[in-house]
């Protein structure tokens, strides 16, 4: 469904993303993990059209959209959430979500009805009339999700929707994400919380210092020495193996 190939992004000589490629098959939940500062959000920004890549191509459902503006990608069915939540603070929850719904209907009543529907799906049904600025962090994350869903995406890009949530809140959101996929939406998610990645993702990509260092099934990738070293530092994998041997 989405093929992003050989993407490179440079900021004033600093290479944030270096020749990274990612394939998201239709119907999958694909994860993108990596240590802080690896370039995950930059890669996302290129895929969603907020930051043009210096090199590489983004292909969505067979069409090259590398230089297409974000709003046109949204119309193709590519929706994203933001890591740092970006609510329309002065609007209530229903009107926030309705902005997404207007992509497919110009009728305000219909847009608000759909907004209500989506809000219930993500568990915001009781806070429809609350101002977005009055929501908790967990509420705002749900609002990000709801707004993106209201555009009826085919591919949903989730940028750390679980970050900042407590364990019980995470437990509540996981089934929602699974349900979204069951309804036919393909998902690409950046996530730090490994419990969630192991739980949800069919396959994961690991980005470290701008380079894609591993990809595959979550369980396999987690034991990849290169991945362990990326997270825990040089030599960590060897030490862990040695410790493992000693315990045995």
């Amino acid at each position, binding site marked *: 469904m989405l093929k992003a190939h050989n993407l490179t992004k440079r900021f004033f000589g600093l290479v944030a993303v270096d020749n990274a490629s990612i394939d998201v098959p239709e119907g999958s939940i694909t994860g993108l993990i990596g240590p802080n500062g690896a370039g995950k959000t930059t890669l996302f920004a290129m895929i969603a059209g907020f930051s043009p890549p210096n090199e590489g191509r983004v292909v969505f459902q067979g069409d090259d959209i590398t230089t297409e503006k974000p709003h046109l990608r949204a119309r193709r069915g590519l929706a994203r959430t933001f890591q740092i939540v*970006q609510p329309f603070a*002065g609007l209530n929850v229903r009107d926030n979500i*309705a902005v997404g719904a207007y992509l497919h209907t110009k009728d*305000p009543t219909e*847009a608000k009805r759909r907004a209500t529907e989506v809000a219930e799906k993500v568990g915001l049904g009781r806070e429809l009339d609350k101002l977005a600025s009055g929501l908790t962090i967990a509420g705002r994350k749900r609002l990000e999700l709801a707004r993106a869903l*209201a555009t009826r995406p085919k591919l949903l890009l989730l940028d750390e929707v679980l970050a900042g949530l407590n364990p019980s809140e995470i437990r509540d959101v996981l089934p929602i994400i699974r349900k979204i996929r069951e309804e036919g939406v393909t998902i690409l998610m950046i996530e730090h919380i490994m419990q969630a990645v192991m739980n949800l993702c069919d396959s994961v990509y690991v980005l470290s210092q701008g380079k894609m260092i591993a990809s595959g099934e979550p369980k396999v990738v987690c034991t990849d020495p290169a991945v362990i070293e990326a997270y825990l530092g040089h030599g960590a994998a060897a030490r862990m193996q040695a410790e493992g041997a000693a315990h045995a």
Partner: protein
Amino acid sequence: MTKNFELILALAFLALLAVLALVGLPGNILNLFIFMMIVALTAQGWNMLGGYGGLSSFGHAAFFGTGAYTTTILQTTFGINAWIGLVCGVALGALVGALIGFLSFRAGLKGSYFALITLAFAEVLRILANSWDFTGGASGMMVSLKNSFWDLQFADRRYFFLILVVFVVLGLFLTRWLERSAFGAYLIALRENDQAAQALGVDIFRIKMQAITLSAAITSLAGCLYVQNFLFIDANVAYGSWISIEALFAAIVGGAGTIAGPLIGSVLLLGLGEITKSFSGGIPGIDLVVFGIILVLCVAFAPNGVRGYVADLYRRRMNRPPSSPKIV
């Protein structure tokens, strides 16, 4: 306080003014009312872009003046009917709005940069109008007195006031429509967060273009009507910063991004200005001192203007949570 209630209150207030005017008011009060309506209409135009779109223009004089000059030149130089002049004035004003918008929004200007560039455009037009012959240069232009409905002039000024009220009512309905429409939702969304709006499929350039064109059209309509009342303009009146300032002040003091805000603001400001002038014995500029102080007080204590302040008071009495301050 629902939106419809707000609309009805505003309509009732205007109806009251209209009845008062018809029953009979002293000439100077009627003139004040006429001026209030012209400023209200200008501010309604400003509110579309500055209030709902969050793009504060410091140069709405560019549209006001274009409307005013267009209809004046068409009437005096070409002998064209005033109503046709009015339509042309609105069209040309909208065009100038679209042009300024195209240049500014394509360059991605917003915030203080947008405020400054609109001010600069208005100043360029003012200097040009002040030196070109076909705008009458520094001596300005007069529209000859005709006094007939067909010429949009009235010996009895009450009728002119009523026409102004009709336009302000149309402005209210237009604003109400905007609040309810997909266009309005997109406009508010890009005001609150333009990145998030884009991510949701909003073509922010197109929405801003539509907003500035609509906004400019309404403000240039006010400019046309100004000429029909005063029958004289020069560059400092038509393109002077005074009208940019009054439009902005009225909208913000009344409540930017609300239906009745511009009307409330212009009635309040001009009313207060008149009162201070009469109490101070006509010291020049004293009314503007009051305007300025009120603006600062509003930004400090009532970020949503008088309209927002009243709504918050009402909500507090009904024990509902107050709306948080909005970034205009």
